[in-house]
């Protein structure tokens, strides 16, 4: 009886453990699935707001415009149909609110009941018109021609240079500036953090005595526990003004400020991981080097660093990983201009900052909303790639040291 009870208990615990493992795995898979389901949805949408149409005169030979062309037309960067290959001349823009320029209130009607006919007539009478209006105002016998709008394409999404997800009439979903902004800020961060972090970890593992190490290490680890909003605040109050005055800039919120803050945030990861790797260098290896007349410094750079290079690399890459995914601090100090950066002294906008700043105002399930999820997918893929690289490097190293 007792054995039966014991066996039952063991099976029960086994089942419980399996259940928690399964639940965790499923959660991860579910989150990734949800992310990609929402993100990929954007490529099924047209870049024009839902429920709106764009129409031209029936004789206009153009059937199709890209979202960039539409934007340029409405921004009056393209003012002539000839540029787009049509014979007619300068473009006449028409938005719904322009209707009162052409028709009296009586014609439009109190409840806009005359509006569809007005629009229909107008598109018919003006050969150069391009009209943007809600779908519900299309007349049954509409005389104009509705333009076909392409769905958002992956290639345009990735290479597009403009990010105006709420632009009217056509949203611009080019994530290039955001990807470049993210990589730019992270690269700057790693360039600042790597030398400093490496120096600190060499000092702590090889030079500092036990007493100093025991004070320094917890302090540096504490750096990892500071909430990122505090870093952001620190950056905003101290670093941003400092950059502004030092470089005599109109605004101090720049990529450089983001890099500095992210560099500081990446330091504890880099230092703790590389310090551990260096301390794992076998004592026998160091003694062998010293016994051959090598100085302490020669031993560090000829034996300790080569021996722990994979740990150092892993630390650096995980540090970048943290920098790339970091949201709040960057949002606060980089200025968030979605333009392709040309120097570190310009405002930039990163992917996480974009998602955090815009998700609140994007209508659930809409184009903008899904575009932000697609951004999330890109971020996920970047960090996944980073983690796989770390995995690869540490595996390769296990083989080397057998």
């Amino acid at each position, binding site marked *: 009886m007792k054995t039966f009870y014991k066996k039952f208990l063991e099976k029960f615990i086994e089942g419980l453990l399996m259940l928690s493992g399964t639940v965790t795995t499923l959660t991860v898979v579910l989150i990734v699935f949800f992310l990609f389901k929402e993100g990929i949805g954007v490529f099924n949408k047209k870049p024009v707001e839902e429920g709106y149409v764009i129409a031209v005169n029936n004789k206009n030979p153009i059937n199709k415009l890209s979202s960039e062309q539409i934007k340029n037309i409405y921004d009056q960067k393209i003012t002539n149909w000839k540029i787009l290959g049509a014979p007619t001349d300068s473009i006449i823009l028409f938005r719904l609110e322009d209707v009162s320029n052409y028709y009296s209130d009586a014609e439009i009607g109190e409840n806009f009941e005359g509006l569809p006919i007005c629009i229909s007539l107008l598109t018919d009478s003006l050969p150069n018109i391009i009209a943007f209006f809600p779908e519900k105002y299309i007349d049954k016998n509409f005389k104009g021609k509705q333009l076909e709008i392409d769905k958002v394409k992956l290639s345009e999404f990735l290479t597009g240079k403009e990010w105006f997800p709420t632009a009217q009439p056509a949203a611009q979903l080019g994530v290039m500036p955001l990807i470049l902004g993210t990589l730019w800020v992270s690269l700057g961060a790693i360039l600042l953090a790597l030398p400093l972090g490496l120096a600190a970890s060499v000092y702590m593992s090889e030079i500092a005595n036990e007493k100093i190490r025991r004070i320094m290490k917890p302090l540096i680890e504490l750096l990892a526990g500071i909430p990122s909003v505090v870093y952001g605040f620190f950056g905003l109050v101290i670093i941003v003004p400092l950059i502004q005055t030092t470089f005599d800039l109109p605004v101090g919120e720049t990529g450089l400020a983001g890099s500095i803050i992210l560099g500081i945030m990446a330091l504890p990861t880099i230092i703790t991981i590389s310090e551990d790797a260096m301390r794992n260098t076998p004592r026998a290896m160091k003694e062998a080097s*010293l016994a051959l007349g090598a*100085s302490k410094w020669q031993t560090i750079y000829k034996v300790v660093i*080569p021996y722990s290079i994979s740990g150092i690399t892993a630390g650096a890459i995980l540090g970048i990983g943290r920098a790339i995914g970091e949201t709040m601090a960057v949002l606060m100090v980089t200025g968030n201009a979605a333009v392709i950066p040309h120097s570190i002294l310009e405002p930039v906008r990163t992917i996480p900052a974009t998602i955090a700043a815009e998700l609140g105002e994007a209508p659930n399930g809409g184009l903008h909303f899904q575009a932000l999820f697609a951004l999330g997918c890109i971020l996920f893929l970047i960090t996944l790639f980073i983690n796989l690289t770390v995995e690869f490097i540490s595996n390769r190293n296990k083989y080397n040291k057998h």
Partner: protein
Amino acid sequence: MFKIESKNVDFFYGSSQALKNINIAIKPNTVTALIGPSGCGKSTYLRLFNRMNDLIDNTKITGQILIDGEDIYAKGVNVDSLRKKVGMVFQKPNPFPKTIFENVAYGLRVNGISDKKFIEERVETSIKQVALWEEVKDKLKKSAFELSGGQQQRLCIARALAIQPSVILMDEPTSALDPISTSKVEELIYELKSKYTIVIVTHNMQQAGRVSDTTAFFYMGELIEYDNTKNIFTHPKIERTQNYITGRFG
């Protein structure tokens, strides 16, 4: 003239005394074996000769150790040059994670030698000295980890020889090796004697008897007896030495 002299050496780890008043004089071109039970201080003593114990925090030495008549613990002694003169082979083979060639060349490079031809020649002679050349001459560019344990240990000896020390310290150099590799290393020690002064720590009584000229028996941080190996093994003057050698304790 003695190669190594140790005068009234006391050594402390923190407040515990590891060595008590050790006096030994070692002649050049001899092999001296340090024997004794674990924890008796023989390895600690060996590591005093190239100041390896400096790496351990909170240690203290009093008394004098003279090598070629110079006090190696005097102020202003260049420890790096001392270690060039006093090579060391460790308990476990500890090649660097580098190629076979680079392992042997390491000592030359860190001592500022960059003449490629000179390094190549020296590496070759050193590897030949440990009778490893035939086994590795075709794979000098391969990782030293590809060698067997015995080969690795001989490589480590070659590495120590490459900078041409005059003293070689060996800390249980065969304890991690199989019997065949062990006998190869022992033969090697015998051959190296003509050029170097060797001090070897060993747990293996037979080994001490086979390779050494003089033997020092340590017990609890004290030097119990120091004499010709032959005398120690046949007519030890002190009973405790006799008991240890015959295996009654240890």
